[in-house]
Structures are given as C-alpha cells and as structure tokens.
C-alpha cells in the first residue's frame, strides 16, 4: 500500500505550520525591533549632532554671527543623517536642507561665567525614515534569509529524523504486516524496525506486533491441527455417508426388487383367485355360497386395484415415472375410454357425450399412456358414481402461439356429487368420501391422487367442482402443450387401428426362459416377414446373437444361468453385436427405462404382458416397415359410444368359432397365458377388440368377456 502522506510528513507539516507561523511572528517582531533600533540610532545620531554642534550654534547665536551659524548649519547637514537643519534665534534664522519626517529639536543655551545660562533660541535637525529603511534593509534581508535558511535546515533535519525515527520503522512494520504469510511464517519470525537501542512507542509496537505474530502462528498451527482433525472426521463421515448411501441404494434396490417381485408374485395368484371366483359364480347356485363368492371377488378386486395403485404411486413418488411426450390423438383416447366403459354405460343406461373442439389439432405432444390412465380413472369414477343421466367429456383448446396450445379437458357427470368440504381431500392418498359405500363403489382411494400427480408432472392442474346430488366436474388444464408436426402426427396415425403396417424381412431373437412367452411372441410374427428365433436362457441368447447377428433382440430380464442384463451388457461390449437393438421385456413395472439404457445398454423396454401395439411401435423404430393404408374395422369412431355394444357384437361375430371356443375355455381355466396368446391372435385383425378384451382381463372382468363372446 502506497501512502502518499506519511505519518512523518504529516507530523512535519503540523510542526512546521506552527513553526512557520512562529517564525513569521518572530521575524516580523525582529524586523520591527530592527526598525525601532534604527530609528533610535538615528535619533541618537541626531542627539550626537546636537551635542557636537550645540555649543557652536550657541556661540554663533551669542555672537549673532549669521555667517558662523550658516557655517555650522552646513556642517550639520554635511552628515547624511541630517536632511535639513533649522536654527532659530531671536535675530538669526537659518534653514538649510529639507524638512524630513523625523525631527530632533533642542534648545540653544549659551553658558558663560559672566552671563550664566542664556537661552538663545532652538534648533531642529531633520532626518527621514528612508534612512531607517536604508539602514535596516540589509538587516531585513539577513533576517529573512536567516529565517528561511533556518526553517529549511530545520525542515530537512526534522524530516530526516522523523524519517529515521518514525516513517522508516512504521513503513517497515507496515510492509511486514502486509507481507506476513501466516502459512509460511515460523515462530522464530521477528520484525526489526531498526530502533533496537531506543525504547519508545514504536519499539513497544514492534514488540506487540511480534507477540501478535507469535500468537497468530500459534493459533494458526492450532487451527491447522483442528482442521486436520476436522478433515479426518469429514472423511470418516463421508465414508459413513457413502456406506449409508450404498446401503440405502441397496435397500432401495431391494425394495424395488421386492415391489417388482410382489407385483409379479401377487398378480399371478390373484389372477387365479379372481378368475376362478368369477367362473365359480356361474356354477354356484346356493345363495349363501354366492354371497361368499361375491365377497371373495369384491375383496380380490379391491386388493388388486389397491396393489396396482400402490405400485403406481410408489413409482410417482420415487420419480421413476417419466413423462414421455409424443404425438397423441386425444380423439382416439376418448374413444378408447368410451369403448372400455361401453358395457357399464349400457348396463347403467348412461349417455356418454363427447364434445370435442372441432379445431382440435389431430395430434398434440402428450404422454398417451399417462393421459389415457388419467382419463380412464376420471371417466371410470364418473361411471361409478353416476346412476342416471350422462357423462360428458369436453375438450377445448386455445392457441396462444403458433406451436403451442392451452388444453382443457373436462369430465362432467350427473352423479352423486362431492360435498364442498370434501373436494380438497379427495386428492389425498387413501381418502374416500365420507359416508361412501365401500361395498358399492370399492376403490383404493388412490386413483385421484395418482391422476393429480400425473397431471402435475405434465405441468398441468387437475381440479374439481361439484354439487351434491347434481354431479361433479373434473377439469384438466394443460398449458403450453406443443402441437405435433404434421409428419409426426402422421406417424401417430400409424395406429394399427387405422393403418396396416408390415415389417420388411428381418431376423429377430426372442430370449425368454418361459416357454409360453417365447411361443406367444413367436406366434405374433408367424405370418410376417420377420424370422423369429428363440433362446431359452441367456447363454443361448449370447450364442445365437453372435452367430446369427439378428436385426433386433427381445430380451427377458430374468433368465437362468445368465440374466438379461448381463447378456445385454456382453453383447453391447462386443464390437460384432453392439449395433443390435435390444428391447428389454420386463415383468416388473418398476424398471426404469433410462436406467436400463444407461447402465446396461438397452435400446428400449416393454412391460410384460407385452402390448402388441407397443411392441409394434417400438420395433418400428429399429426395423424397416411398409405401410398399407386401409379402412380398418373399428368400433365406429364416428358413432356415439352408446352404439358401441352392437358394434362389438358385430365384430365378435366375425371372429373364428374356434378362437371364441378356445378363449372361453381359457377363461374358464383362468389360463392367463392362453388368454393372452388368443388376444394376440386377433391383434392384427382387430386391435381395438384385442385391447378391450385385454383390459377386461387385466381387470379380471371375465364375465364381461364371456358376455361378449356370446355374440
């Protein structure tokens, strides 16, 4: 740090300001004294002149000798000090020279024995102040020069002394304090400001500074020691946390495993329980046994719903559900829901009204799976809680920008309604409306919670308004929904419901340890250009993949010997096979697709049981396809949903009798594997029907399926 005005300098300025003031005063005083001295000298000189010439003047006046008086006067002004003289007696008056501003007047007294003392007149000797100035001018110069020289010399001396005694030591101390590096300094460090033999405030400061440095060094080493201990502790804690995290991850993984296993292990026996219970319902005639059976069915369904909902909620809360936006046809989703609930709507004589904005874009970027789930939940609730009247689905869009719209989907019913104070609570987990008849309505109490969370994950809002006895209105508001580009909207139209698409010739490998699964998938590709190879375990899958280099692999994750994860990792690490797309087939719905991709190299995943629609869509990303557009058989996209039942019956009537018989038998046996196989067989013929039957199987609504098969 550069100090422009050092302490020494400031001290110097302060001292010399006073000194200069005092010097000026003393100099002026000295000059004044010089002046008065010179003035006195002149007066004394005038007195001397008086003494010298007084008697002569007296004699001249006594003798009345004007000539002599004149001569004396000339003698007086001969002296420089006298500028003029005036001698005035009674009879003689003499004046020579000029009158000046200084005058010395004296009486002329003649003294003689015979006459004593006689005053004869007076004389005035004149002088001028200019003479004073002439006399003092050199003294003045001397005084001023002397004062200036003394001041300058004193200045220099004091400057040097203050520099030596104050500035230098302070500067040294300042430099030492500024450059002091406590990390490098040792205890032997001592600052010496160069005033060893003197004892004053600065040496005390030096001593204090050195003491302070010593203390700081000591404190620093103490701090270092504490820091080292702290670092050790932090490391220990970090290790502990790492271990805890690993444990938590292991525990989480175990939990995921557990949930996956549970979902798999619980659903299979539940299938049997519910399937046989439903089938048994047609055989049992005893009324009491029927009540027992209905209780088993109701409890089982509730348990299954609860289980699915818990799993869904678990996934949402653990962040494992990722919204995957893709071109989505809201028309189709609403139509699907209409079809799915067509039977119940028919049974309850409810109208299902669609009011869809005629300007609604064909496809919007939404997650079709999750939107479908929410719509089914809300429409399902509406159907459930409405005994008469109608259910109305309204879709409106508001285009604010060129590429995005704000979307409003409203599901309105004329059901029992929800009291106002209950309206906020219905979105809470496991909450059911107070006084709700569980036996009548069932449900886990998680549907609305899941729906709300899903909508929120889409940056939307799900809200409700309701009036008891009049009905409820659930409103989904999704803002800034991107409009799918036309080409992508076309891709969305690849829905097998509308178009038929064929894979070009390709070879795929199906790896699954469960034979029925392998057969089911192989059966799907039987009449296509795709050559499907099968592998019963991971080891075979590796061998076949390396040998045949298939265009795509469908990989079950849980296989004996080498599991699907390991097979994929090995294939992806092999240069020959790493290009092969591998689709994971997971029976666990907890698998995270992103994690599968990142950790093992999977290119995609499909949950089991495999939806053939999804299978087609995911395979179409990797295999070449041909598209043939034709008018498919449908459940009447243009018709009102209330007309869906006769249409279903019409479609079912066209199904082969053998297929229908096989399906009845499979349902009666509750052979899920066979049921799925049969559904897959009609997938290509009528995907919509296949989807409807599959949903009913998933919901264990076997009686409904049997009813359909009656047509």
């Amino acid at each position, binding site marked *: 740090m550069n100090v422009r005005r050092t302490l020494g300098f400031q001290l110097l300025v302060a001292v010399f300001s006073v000194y200069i003031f005092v010097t000026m005063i003393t100099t002026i005083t000295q000059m004044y004294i010089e002046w008065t001295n010179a003035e006195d000298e002149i007066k004394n000189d005038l007195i001397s002149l008086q003494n010298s010439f007084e008697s002569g003047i007296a004699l001249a006046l006594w003798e009345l000798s004007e*000539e002599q008086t004149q001569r004396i006067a000339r003698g007086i002004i001969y002296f420089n000090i006298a500028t003029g003289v005036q001698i005035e007696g009674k009879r003689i008056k003499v004046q020579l020279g000029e009158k000046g501003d200084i005058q010395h007047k004296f009486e002329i007294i003649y003294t003689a024995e015979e006459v004593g003392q006689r005053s004869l007149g007076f004389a005035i000797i004149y002088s001028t102040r200019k003479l004073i100035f002439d006399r003092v001018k050199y003294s003045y110069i001397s005084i001023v020069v002397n004062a200036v020289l003394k001041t300058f010399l004193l200045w220099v001396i004091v400057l040097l002394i203050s520099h030596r005694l104050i500035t230098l030591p302070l500067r040294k101390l300042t430099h030492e304090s500024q450059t002091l590096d406590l990390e490098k300094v040792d205890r032997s460090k001592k600052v010496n400001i160069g005033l060893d033999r003197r004892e004053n405030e600065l040496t005390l400061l030096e001593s204090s500074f050195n003491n302070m440095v010593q203390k700081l060094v000591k404190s620093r080493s103490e701090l270092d020691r504490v820091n080292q201990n702290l670092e050790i502790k932090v490391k220990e804690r970090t290790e502990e946390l790492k271990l805890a995290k690993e444990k938590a991850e292991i525990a989480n993984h175990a939990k995921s495993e557990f949930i996956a296993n549970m979902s798999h292990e619980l659903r299979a026996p539940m299938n049997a329980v519910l399937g046989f219970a439903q089938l048994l319902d047609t055989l049992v005639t005893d009324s009491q046994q029927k009540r027992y059976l209905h209780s088993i069915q109701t409890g089982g369904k509730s348990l299954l719903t609860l289980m699915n909902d818990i799993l869904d909620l678990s996934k949402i809360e653990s962040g494992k559900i990722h919204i995957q936006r893709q071109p989505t046809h809201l028309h189709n989703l609403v139509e699907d829901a209409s079809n799915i609930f067509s039977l119940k709507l028919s049974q309850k004589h409810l109208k299902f009204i669609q009011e869809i904005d005629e300007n609604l874009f064909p496809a919007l970027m939404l997650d079709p799976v999750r939107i479908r789930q929410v719509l089914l939940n809300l429409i399902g609730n509406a159907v459930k809680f409405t005994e008469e009247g109608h259910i109305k689905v309204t879709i409106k869009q508001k285009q604010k920008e060129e590429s995005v719209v704000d979307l409003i989907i409203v599901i309105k019913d004329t059901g029992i309604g929800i009291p106002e104070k209950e309206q906020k609570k219905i979105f809470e987990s496991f909450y059911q409306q107070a006084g709700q008849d569980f036996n009548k309505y069932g449900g886990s109490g998680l549907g609305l919670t899941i729906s709300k969370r899903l909508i929120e994950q889409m940056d939307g809002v799900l809200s409700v308004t309701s009036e008891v006895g009049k009905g409820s209105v659930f409103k989904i508001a999704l803002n800034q929904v991107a409009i799918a580009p036309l080409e992508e909207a076309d891709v969305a139209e690849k829905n097998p419901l509308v178009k038929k698409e064929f894979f070009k010739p390709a070879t795929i490998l199906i790896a699954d340890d469960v034979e029925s699964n392998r057969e089911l998938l192989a059966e799907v590709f039987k009449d296509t250009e795709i050559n499907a190879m099968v592998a019963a375990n991971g080891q075979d899958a590796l061998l076949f993949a390396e040998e045949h280099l298939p265009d795509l692999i469908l990989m079950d994750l849980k296989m004996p010997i080498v599991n699907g994860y390991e097979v994929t990792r090995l294939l992806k690490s092999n240069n020959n096979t790493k290009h092969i797309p591998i689709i994971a087939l997971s029976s666990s719905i907890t698998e995270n697709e992103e994690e599968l991709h990142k950790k093992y190299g999977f290119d995609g995943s499909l949950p089991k049981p495999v939806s053939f629609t999804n299978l087609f869509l995911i395979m179409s990303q990797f295999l070449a396809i041909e598209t043939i557009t034709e008018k498919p058989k449908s459940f009447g996209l243009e018709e009102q949903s209330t007309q869906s039942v006769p249409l279903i019956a019409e479609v079912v009537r066209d199904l082969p009798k053998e297929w229908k018989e096989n399906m009845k038998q499979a349902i009666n046996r509750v052979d899920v594997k066979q049921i799925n196989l049969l559904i897959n067989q009609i997938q290509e013929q009528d995907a919509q029907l296949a989807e409807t039957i599959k949903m009913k199987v998933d919901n264990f609504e076997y009686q409904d399926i049997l009813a359909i098969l009656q047509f």
Partner: protein
Amino acid sequence: MKQLLMFLLTCFVFHSAYAICKIKVRTAKVSVGENSLKYIIHDDGSWSGLTIDLTKALLEEAGCQYTFHPMPWKRALADLEDGHIDMMMNFSFNKDREKFAYYIGPMDEEKMILIVQKKSNYQINSLEDFKKIPVKFSFERGAYLGKVFDNKLKTDPEFKKKFSQFSGGDITNYERLALGRMGGFIADKYEVAIHLKKFPQLIVHPFTINHDWVYWGISRKSVSAETILKLYQAYIRLKDKKSLEQIVHQYAKLQ
C-alpha cells in the same frame, strides 16, 4: 491714623532717593595680561583701563552699583536692546541704535584706522578703493564705522564682499594679518600702537575709516528713567569737575 500716613509717605520718598541702581556693563573680552589700554582685567577679576575707569567714574558718581560683562559687540547690542545688559561703552551714535538706547556723553573720541602689512602698497584714498584691492579686510562684528561706511556697506554689495567680521577684541587679527591671511583690518587707533610693537611688519594705513565721538549707551528697556536721570546728572557733575579729562590724561601718558 495721621501718623501712619506720614510714615508711609516718608518711606516712599526715601525709597525713591535711595533706590538701588545696578548697572550691568558690557565690556570687551580680553585676557589677563593682554595689551589693551581701554579694557584691562586683572588676576582678581577686577577691571581697569581708560574706558573702564571713565565708566566707573560715571557710575560711581551716579551712585550705582555695576558689574562688567565681557561679550562680543554685536551680542552686546542685542542684549542692550533686549535689556539683558544695561550699558555699553564706546557707543557710536546712529539712528538705528537710538531706538533702543539712551546716549550719555560723549565719553571719548574714537578714530578707526586700517592696519595693513608694511609691504602692502594699497592705494586707498576712499572707500571705493577697497573694491580694487584683491584681498579681504575685516572689522569687528556689529561695529558702527560711521555713516558713510555704514551706507556703503548697506548699498554696495561688492564693497560688502571685501569685508569679513570678527568677534570683538580678537587680537589674533594681528597674527593672521602678519601671516597674510587677510588684507588688513579696521581697529581703534588708540589700541593698536601697543600691538604694532609686537608686529613690526604691520603698519597703520594713512586712510582713516572713521573719526567720531563715542558715548555711553544705556538700555531703554532695562534702565529706568530715574537711573538715566541720575547718570546724566552724574555726567554733568563729572564734566564740571573735569574728572573725565583727568582720567584721559592719565592714560595718554601711558600711550
């Protein structure tokens, strides 16, 4: 009461008759042993000489006490006018002096002559001739050298330039003249004979500057009319007794 008035009247009459008469007389400054016939001072401070003795005779005749005060002639004139002294001796008459002085006398005659060096050959027959001589002369300051000389001095600056003045009774004039530091000086013929004996190189020039009677001059300012009256009366008495002539004759023998 009558007796008291008679007493006071008697005192007044006697006071007038016997009032103290004190006269301060100017005298020339001379030293003891100096050769002068008119003014002589003795070791005891007493005075004598022709002029002194004539004055003593007058004052004593008038019954006055007297003291002698040596001073320059011109100062004495001023002091007489101012009343500082009461009497001057050898006092020539002129109109200016009559303004401040009474004249009593004559007491003596005075002949003012010119002293020059022998070797000088100054052709001086009139006052005008002084201007032709290339040297300066001197006379006693304040001295009245006759009406003609006084007029010439006042009216002819060139003439005036030829003269300087000295303080009265200055015998150094003889020495200075002998040394040639002046052309000559004017002196009382009565006094010079005794000095010329000492300075044989000096002589008296035949041209007489002035020859006239001299008087006692009495200060009009300091001397009362009564004293004047006394002095007149005394002078008449001395004249009548020829006392003054006797004194003159005594000193003529000494000359």
